[in-house]
């Protein structure tokens, strides 16, 4: 099993870059404890020990023994390094939101983008309060604005008409 395949398993329920790196770190720590210490903790106990959130736990608990069996003492760091470097080559979508959405909402967004843009993309979430509402994203070097500004601009003619009719009636 190569890096690519492990990557696919992780990406199955990981949609953001930060989640990918966080989960890879947890996997590495668990495997380091397993290979290089006397720790006999199961992955579930290890997660309890780390006091990860419920959301993380639900995402990570899918990694079963067969997944961890892909790693050995010898190939652990090689695989980790390969996975980290492969992350840079994944199709990246930088998503700008006005507020920090919760994990479930981000997962939903990730699923949506993978369904409609690229099944392998990974999101990089950035916060931009100036968007007020909606979102904006950068995909393949192009910026797409789906914020309040964008929708107001589309309706500018209608808004101008409303203002003009108000002015004619009242001024």
């Amino acid at each position, binding site marked *: 099993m190569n890096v690519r395949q492990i990557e696919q398993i992780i990406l199955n329920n990981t949609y953001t870059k930060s989640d990918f790196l966080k989960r890879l770190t947890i996997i590495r720590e668990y495997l380091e404890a397993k290979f290089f210490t006397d720790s006999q903790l199961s992955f579930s106990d290890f997660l309890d020990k780390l006091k990860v959130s419920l959301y993380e736990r639900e995402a990570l608990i899918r990694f079963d023994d067969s997944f961890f069996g892909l790693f050995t003492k010898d190939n652990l760091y090689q695989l980790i390094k390969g996975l980290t470097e492969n992350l840079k080559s994944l199709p990246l979508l930088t998503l700008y*939101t*006005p*507020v920090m*959405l*919760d994990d479930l*909402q981000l997962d*939903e*967004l990730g699923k*949506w983008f993978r369904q*409609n*843009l690229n099944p392998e993309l990974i999101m990089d979430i950035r916060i931009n*309060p*100036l968007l*007020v*509402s*909606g*979102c904006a994203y950068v*995909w*393949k070097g*192009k910026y*797409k604005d*789906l*914020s*309040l*500004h*964008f*929708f*107001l*601009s589309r309706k*500018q003619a209608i*808004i*101008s008409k409303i*203002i*003009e009719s108000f*002015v004619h009636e009242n*001024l």
Partner: protein
Amino acid sequence: MENNLLIFLLLTLTLITATTQIILFIYLTGKNRKSGPAEDFPDATEEKNAEILHDAILKANKILVNAELKGIEYISKRKLDSEKFFGDYQSQISQLEEKLLKQFDQTLAKMDQSFAVYMSGLEKKLLTEEEANRKLFQEKTLKLMENSQTLMQAFINEINGKIKSQIEDELTGVKNEIYNYKKKRLEIINSNIVDILEQTLEQALGKKLSLADHSEIIFTSLEQAKNEHSLM
């Protein structure tokens, strides 16, 4: 003048006679002194001389008296003549004066009369002229007033028209300016309406939208872009 000359001659003669007598007296007295005792007995020549001198003196005196008498006579005559002449002159002068006064009165009366005639004629002429002038003045004044009224009316109408057109132009200009100002303001508002609304909504909605609302808006906008095939 002649009187003065005559008086001068008389005085001259009197003076000469007196001088001659004085010289004779001096000569005779001087001679008596010179002769003294040796000459107590005058001779015939000296007697003759004395007689001659005495005759001369007597003649001179006679001449002098005659001359004086002549002179007096002449003077009297002259005085009488002059008195007569003066009387004649005075009477003639009086006559002339009366004549002249008469003539002057007549002339004056004539002058009065002709002056009165002239004055009455002049008065009539003046009255006629005055009447004619008054009529002419009236006519001219009426004409002038009519012309002035016409000109004033035309001027007033012209001014009214100009003022009216100026006011209308000003009003039109002002209306245009107001319209252009409104239009410009609307254009400015229209061009910045998105930013205005954005800032307004940012202030109004910023802390009012929940995470769920934000999520819903994001998904709605993504779906809309997908339906419009404008995802990328």
